[in-house]
């Protein structure tokens, strides 16, 4: 599943870039996070509670910040296991300086779910879960950035 969008933050492009490429700060805004372990400047592991109703469980997601092109773009690649399934997620950010000095963040997210959830999870529902999680993630980042400024 592919999702994309953009938002504007009242902060400099360098500030936004630094935020997006900092595992400690990015991970804090991921949805329903229970635990975060930072391995190094690029890699971190997040345990999150995912799902609805009784189709719910902990997904352990290993994430890596890749393709750093300061201060214009970066990609977060993650793979998580849980709920008898595997979730692959790629979120990339492209930054642009707006006319008033604010930063325009373009994001693209791709989520693929493999395994039992893909087949047994009620269809349509998975898309909703994925969409909701990405939306929450983006909202989190946005508010995290706003809070800083």
């Amino acid at each position: 599943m592919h999702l994309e969008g953009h938002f504007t933050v009242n902060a400099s492009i360098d500030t936004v870039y630094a935020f997006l490429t900092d595992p400690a700060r990015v991970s804090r805004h991921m949805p329903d996070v229970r635990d975060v372990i930072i391995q190094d400047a690029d890699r971190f592991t997040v345990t999150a509670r995912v799902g609805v109703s009784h189709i719910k469980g902990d997904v352990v997601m290993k994430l890596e910040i890749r393709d750093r092109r300061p201060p214009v773009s970066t990609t977060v690649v993650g793979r998580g296991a849980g709920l008898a399934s595997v979730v692959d997620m790629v979120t990339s950010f492209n930054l642009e300086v707006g006319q008033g000095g604010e930063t325009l963040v373009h994001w693209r997210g791709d989520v693929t779910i493999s395994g039992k959830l893909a087949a047994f999870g009620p269809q349509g529902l998975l898309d909703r879960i994925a969409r909701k999680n990405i939306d929450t993630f983006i909202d989190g980042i946005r508010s995290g950035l706003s809070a800083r400024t």
Partner: protein
Amino acid sequence: MFPADFDYVVPRSVDEAVAMLVHYGDDAKVLAGGQSLIPMMKLRIASPRVLIDVNGIAELAGLRRDGDRLVLGALCRHADVAASPLVREHLPLMHDAAQLTADVQVRNRGTVAGSLAHADPAGDWPAALLALDTHVTVAGPDGTRTVPLAAFLVDAYTTQLGANELITQVAVGIPPGRTGGAYAKFERRAGDFAVASAGVQVTLDEAGRCAAVAISCGAVAPSPFRARAAEAMLAGQALSEDLLAQAEHAVRDEASPFADTRGSVEYKRHLAGVLVRRACVAALARARGERVDTLHL
């Protein structure tokens, strides 16, 4: 096919069950019929750490008439509804839904309240009971509260039920005279969830016109919904073939299904209309006192 390990606790009363829910929080699930929960646990796409088995709470069992309401305890099974002469006589829509839910064995275990709590968009009870005057009573740490079903159902698999709450009963208003209801379901094969479903409850006036009508649609939106546009078309009218055809079209536009292996968006919209129309015809006949068997499509 074993579930991940969990603890199993057996409350003897609603209060005790609520206390357990408060204690274990989000890690716990209530086990009533278990006919949806246990398969998901075996597949390990659900792994609650604690199961609170409420099957031993006597006060939650069965169904009874309470004045102008039918009251289903939280442990009332689909089979209890199917076997009830009271339901058959006064709430044929529910009789239909009970007949059409899953299969004999599942109907013997699964509960109506559990089905509402699960809020599967393609489940039968949320859609069927939405066409009736249904209220859900839940118990929590702060006592009990009663909410209309429409408010209880929030979204796909999402209800108002808090993590520390439990449904204690479901109450359905028994319609007065000159009314009839029907529930129609299209399934890929016997025992399946609905591709689309519809509940219709019609009340006629003395002239045989439609005094009031409630139309619910299941499986064709993230959550079952009342087809208000179609209802508005029919209310106060003589239900002619033409009018029913218009209502059928209106329902197609009100539906917002997602595509899956059960069908495309276009097909599900079409089915929603067809089912509403067929349920209308059956409900109307029943309102006129005719005997109509459960529709098997």
